[in-house]
């Protein structure tokens, strides 16, 4: 660990804000970093570079560079995560972390940098808790300075439940659960599925008072097998592979009896994520036949077919078909939806607002002119990308069986559950 200094820089490498935590690396290294970044070709750039015994670990965000330097053999993963955490915290504070918001809020950024890291060691980074004592106005705390608040505040900074402060109060206690599955798919040019996987996440927004204990029941296969032995009612289970949880979940309990119990942070967070490597039938299948007549025209015929159940509907389907960068005079014809030529992406975007399931097929034809003289540069072959979302549907079949909320005041809280299936990295390669 132990980052020496943190820099926030604009896209040209001008330092907007810097904080020197350890003083072991001169602050002038920022310029060295910039010249290194600028002289290196984009393609060869790595997120972690090293020169003269100093390591530069950086991430890019909205045309900003967030840079951490260290002269030790530090733990790269931790520093990277810390930089991302910084972005998250700043976003909570200023809505969007960008050059302008940094300039407008440099005082707060200094304050935050001071609390989030000390002598190169990360301290408290929970945005909700930081907001308790670093506010835009700075008034809040002054008032409390003579009362009891500071003690409770410092209690939460370092308390046992580091992600939740005490004394949260809502008039209406509610929990929202979103089960979001995104499908990653890679299909080769000849139509074989190279790779398909489901990456799922259970996201939660909690608006609960006090210190509630939550228990979440899923149709987890292992759990069902266990309960089947003890004679509990049978059901269809889902085998979750490699589940990962938010730090609030008591992992030991999950290991023992597969119950997911936790005290949730306030507000929004990702409770758990999982991955399923089972081959699923691609939900939307796309085939594209292109016919290129060099120096005159190129024609495309794209066929899209739904392969999910008839009851469901895919919303906002976008099929993005790449075309040569020098194509012109687009003409489209499609059985459903709208087509648009997006020259900035060198692609046709075929949008279908509602795509019913159950094997429906749609066709689209496109025609482009090609210039008579073309540059003889070999074209790369970008894939066809597909975006969609299917509400009330999960590929894995995961279901929330129950969500129990127990709080010592005994209030009733309403859980809301939604399911949605999204396209992740969904690509068809072209020949």
């Amino acid at each position, binding site marked *: 660990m132990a980052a020496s200094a943190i820099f926030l820089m604009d896209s040209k490498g001008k330092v907007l804000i810097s904080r020197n935590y350890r003083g072991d690396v001169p602050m002038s290294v920022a310029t060295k970093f910039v010249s290194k970044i600028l002289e290196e070709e984009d393609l060869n750039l790595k*997120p972690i570079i*090293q020169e003269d015994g100093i390591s530069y670990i950086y991430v890019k965000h909205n045309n900003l560079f967030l840079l951490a330097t260290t002269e030790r053999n*530090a733990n790269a993963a931790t520093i990277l995560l810390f930089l*991302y955490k910084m972005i998250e915290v700043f976003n909570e504070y200023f809505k969007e972390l960008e050059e302008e918001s940094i300039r*407008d809020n440099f005082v707060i950024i200094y304050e935050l940098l*001071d609390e989030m890291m000390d002598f190169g060691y990360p301290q408290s980074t*929970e945005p909700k808790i930081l907001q308790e004592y670093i506010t835009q106005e700075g008034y809040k705390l002054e008032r409390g300075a003579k009362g009891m608040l500071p003690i409770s505040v410092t209690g939460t900074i370092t308390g046992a439940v580091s992600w939740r402060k005490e004394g949260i109060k809502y008039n209406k206690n509610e929990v929202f659960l979103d089960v979001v599955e995104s499908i990653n798919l890679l299909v080769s040019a000849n139509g074989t599925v190279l790779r398909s996987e489901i990456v799922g996440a259970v996201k939660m927004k909690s608006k609960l008072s006090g210190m509630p204990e939550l228990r979440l029941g899923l149709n987890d296969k292992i759990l069902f097998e266990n309960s089947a032995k003890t004679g509990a009612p049978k059901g269809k289970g889902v085998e979750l592979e*490699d589940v990962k949880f938010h730090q609030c979940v008591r992992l030991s309990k999950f290991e023992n009896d597969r119950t997911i119990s936790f005290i949730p942070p306030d507000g929004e967070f990702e409770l758990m994520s999982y*991955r399923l490597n089972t081959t699923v039938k691609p939900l939307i299948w796309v085939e594209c036949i292109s016919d290129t007549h060099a120096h005159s025209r190129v024609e495309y015929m794209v066929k899209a077919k739904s392969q999910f159940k008839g009851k469901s509907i895919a919303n906002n389907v976008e099929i993005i078909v790449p075309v040569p960068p020098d194509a012109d005079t687009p003409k489209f014809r499609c059985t459903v939806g709208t087509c648009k030529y997006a020259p900035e992406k060198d692609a046709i975007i075929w949008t279908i607002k509602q795509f019913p399931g159950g094997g429906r097929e749609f066709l689209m034809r496109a025609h482009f002119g090609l210039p008579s003289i073309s540059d003889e540069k070999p074209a790369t072959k970008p894939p066809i990308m597909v975006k969609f979302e299917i509400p009330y549907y999960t590929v894995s079949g995961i279901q929330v069986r129950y969500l129990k909320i127990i709080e010592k005041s005994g209030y009733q809280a309403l859980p809301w559950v939604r399911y949605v299936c999204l396209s992740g*990295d969904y690509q068809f390669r072209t020949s």
Partner: protein
Amino acid sequence: MKAGNNVGNIVTINNNNNNASQGKKESYFSEIKKSEIGLLKMNLSNAVNERDAEKIKEILQRIIYFMTIGMDVSALFPDVIMVGSSNNIVIKKLVYLYIVHYSKSNPDLLLLVINTIRRDCTDRNPIIRGLALRSLCSLDSETILEYANVEIGKHLTDFSGYVRKTALLGLAKLYHLSPKSFDLDTFIPSIYGMIMDQDPQVIVNAISALNEIRPGWTFTFDLVQHLMSKFKEFNEWSQCIILDCLSRYKPSNEEEGLEILNLLDDRLSHSNSAVTLSTIKIFLKYTDDLEEIQEQVYERIKEPLITLMENSESNETSYTILNHIYLLMSRSPKLFNKYYKQFYCKYNDPMYIKTLKVKVLQEIAANQTYIEAIDEIVTELSEYLHEDHSLCKQAMNAITDIAQKHKKNQEKYPIDKHILERIFLPFLKTTIDTSGGDGVGDHSGFINETILSYSLICLKDFLRVYPKHLNNVLPYITSSLLQYTLPPQANESILWMLGEEPNVQEDTPYIIEEFFKDHFDQQPTFIKIQLLTTSLKVFFERPGEMLPIIRDIITKCSNLSQDPDLHEISLFYSRILLLDVEKASSIINASKNQPINSFLEDETNEYRDKIFDEFNTLSVLYCKPSLIFIKSKEEVENEKNQIIENQKNYLLSITNGNNNNNNNNNNNNNNQQSTTNNSDSKSIIKQIESSPSNLIDTFMLEQRPELSPDEFQSLWLSLEDGHNFDIQLDRFIDNSEIESVMSKEGILCLAFGSVNDQTKLYYYARQNIVDDPLQEQNQTNGTPVFIIEIIIDEKSLLMSILFKSPLLKTLHTKFIPKFLSLLSIPIPKIFN
């Protein structure tokens, strides 16, 4: 998951600047005028008199803004510290921020702040106590040590955890500030004691403090138990730190180690990649001697690693994980065999990820026994050939490497044939097809020269392992290849192939002839050598056809105007040809048709074991052990001392002439030439300058350097202090005296003046780099500017000189000696 898929709305605090700052927002961005500081000073004192907290805050914000953009507002130091006694916490924070920033340049004034800080250390608000402590220890000055020690000592037992955790890291800061005056006997036991604290953050900071003060300390068994029982209470960062220490801990026996691992098992399912990696490190360390269990560990960790790589929303994290996966494969090569599809490149992956994925795929395929999988990987890799240059090259290399690795299984699985037919030959075929049609009916458009050249280059390596395929390849090596602009390596490969089997391609002699006539002159030497060798090999097989041209080739190559290497080789060849053609043939063809079974580069990297010890650190990402890229403390010290030593010796040699030459060590043997009886330093300097191998002979300054006052100021602010010197003067020296000497040598005066009985002189100089091509190659990053501040106290006649430069080494070894020797003209006393 896409970051954009956030559900619901995040509660955010609106970005509402309070009224005060809104009004002034404009001026934050406007150019700063010189008078601004004076204005700030005035406004600040007015606001203080009016006791208007809002106004003070607003002015402080402006000051901090100037500080942030690199403008020097240190002149306001006395005024700012006056405000520090305010009760407003935001004002306090701003004041402390300012003080910490300028503490180094104002060590004397710090004493004025100490009282405020000490008062704040007893404030009722723990946040203020923490703030005061943190700032106190961050003041980069030894003046505060005494006070800081006292305050820290008091607050290690503060009732607020926030203050205690701050105090602990304060200890670490103090230790770094001055290890010598650190009271180990008192503090170390208290730190140990605080590991048993109630507050998790205090515990972790205690551990961090020990890591800083006693690097290499290890946990005891009791401590491990204690920490493990509280483990869930720590936040993720703290868990990382504890896990890191735990990886240094050596369990007393196998069972104990396994027990700890059991407790940590659930950490592998953590969504934080840093925690997972730290845990993996412990798993690997603890099972290092238990082969069977380690196998299980590998099995256990592979899934989490893949998930982390896949799910990570940041490419940077995926990159880190991928690097670790690649490292693990060196220990357990078959570990990810089943998962090869996870490493297929996505179209929008950044290049650094694609590169790594190709490396992983290559490794998997090389250690794969499952034939379909190898096939699929090769097919996948061939997809990347159409991508960017570097990826194309890498993929081609990977494919070739896979073919070489599976040489042993070629009976069972003729991968060489597959690859040849599917990858290499199609590209070569197109060259013939298109040239046959004279490039008119090109429905495929054009030849992708990148792929063509890389496939040619790799073909050479491929054929060295599988020489039997030369017969299949050579028919496609025709003169039509010469019409493309191929990189030299590709041409080399073509020539090499032709030389190996001159009879297969009928046109061989004519291709060589064409190449020789049309392309020879612009080729680099190694191609010329290859051409020479190839023509000889062809000559031995087909003397009749080669004879007309071979003489020309040898004559041209042995021409003295050619590269000496080529010249020598061609002379050698022509001589052995004259002696005995048979013998010559056996010598030149010696390496022919002897398949190579393994390439030296493939041998395991000797570092890998060392890197393994440093799992989850930067070493893994750089693929080299930390010894190589981290400078140890001693090294840094040594370098510094060396420079100072050099300088001392140099000065000695100037002042004492030959008398002291025997004191000089090897570091400055250059100086030993400066032997003379003349004790007049001025003339010695001249001698030194005229001797060729001397230190300063290559060091020249520009006669008329240019540096605007603004540039000077920004340089002055951005650079660390280079070196400073104090000289007690006998009499007051006027600037004109110094300037007259300096300006002759290109050291110019920027400004001078007298304030409060202090005369300040600013000089600058710029190195004439053109005259010094060799010396500074490594340091071209900085501008070779030297800036100097001379302050003469008019009362005590103490002259202090401060040098700064981006090129510290040159500054110390070259510039300072020169400057001082010049200064010795008006002030001869310097060298006495």
